[in-house]
């Protein structure tokens, strides 16, 4: 089971209470499989974190794990063990922008 922390506007959209959701992933725990599982559990999030067609990260969304920036990592890259075990969350963050 992994933990994923969502930005506030996506928690509201997905009707999530609390800052985190938990996901069961079968197979390799990668950034891509974590996002696949997240969108399967919360379909309203499809298209809001990554593009529907290309699966590219949206420009103003970033990923962090274990104090490292994962925004530019391959979707096939295995997430850190601490995220895989649930000790640390995968952070999905809205980039800071005013307005």
């Amino acid at each position: 089971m992994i933990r994923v922390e969502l930005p506030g506007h996506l928690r509201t959209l997905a009707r999530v209470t609390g800052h985190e959701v938990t996901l069961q992933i079968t197979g390799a725990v990668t950034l891509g499989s974590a996002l696949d599982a997240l969108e399967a559990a919360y379909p309203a999030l499809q298209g809001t974190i990554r593009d529907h067609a290309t699966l590219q990260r949206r420009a103003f969304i970033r990923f962090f794990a274990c104090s490292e920036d994962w925004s530019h990592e391959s979707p096939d890259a295995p997430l850190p063990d601490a995220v895989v075990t649930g000790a640390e969350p995968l952070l999905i963050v809205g980039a800071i922008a005013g307005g």
Partner: protein
Amino acid sequence: MSKVRVLVGTRKGAFVLTADGKREQWDISGPHFAGWEIYHMKGSPVDPNRLYASQSSGWSGQVMQRSNDGGATWEPVGNKFAYDGVPGTHQWYDGTPHPWEFKRVWHVEPSLTDADTVYAGVEDAALFRSGDGGQTWEEVAGLRKHGSGPHWQPGAGGMCLHTIIPDPSNTRRIYIAISAAGAFRTDDGGATWQPINRGLYSKYIPDPTAEVGHCVHHVAMHRSRPNVLFMQKHWDVMRTDNAGDSWQEVSGNLPSDFGFVIDVHAHEPETIYVVPIKSDGEHFPPEGKLRVYRSRTGGNEWEAMTKGLPQSDCYVNVLRDAMAVDSLDSCGVYFGTTGGQVYASADAGDTWKPIVRDLPAVLSVEVQTLSS
């Protein structure tokens, strides 16, 4: 007793304003989708409790919302807007080719005959249709694949398809408008489209009478006369009496023929409303006076409606989808401003009152007339 429901989209959420037929006491619900831009909301004429809303943000893109209870509760529906085939390029501001990219939904237009059918006008300009209540969307690709598509160019707000008007007398005819391509019409249910811009004159494009390239801001129709359309263009207020085959200017004595909104009285098809705006650079009311101009002659002769509206130091704008009318016996007229006010007139524009004063900047206003 009838009542009205005003659907207000703003930069930071949606609001639903309701009143009885007197339109004096208003209940305000919202913000729904707080923090998100709500470009447009509209209810189904078939089932008035079925509402559709376009919700978007710079962070997370496009979301579509649907309500089945008049806006009390909402559910997200499909947000996958994929252009048909390889979308190719249109012109960028500097005339160079630019890839077609989906950005947001500007306008939703529920079908006149089926609550589950709804059209969406998007940026970069294209028309989409859903036949399952917004769960899935398919491009009406004949429009974008009209031969002029590669020559379309964005206006200052983006290359948006902002106006969709189904013909109530002909299910196969739809009018749309794009900034800055112009107006188009289909007579075969969307398979093929033709530009309907003859008579428009735009001095800011290389060929002022070009077939496409005109910055149409909004178009309105009275449902009793579907061949008569009124247009607020970037400059000029125009009308056509032959379904867009030709247009004539009817700006007449307006203090500025620039503006965004235009609408038609619910019971008087020759009574129309605009809000003149100073441009090109300013985009606020001339002389700092917020005035709705009404013509009872289908244009050319205009009178300023000022009672209840600020007549000094007012520097708001009224955006293209931010005016609507109700269909009560005494026609109500409503508009919202970038200053967050929504003004209502229960007497066809003679007098005005703010329903609310301090919302986020208003992007759109729609009105439903309901039998309670």
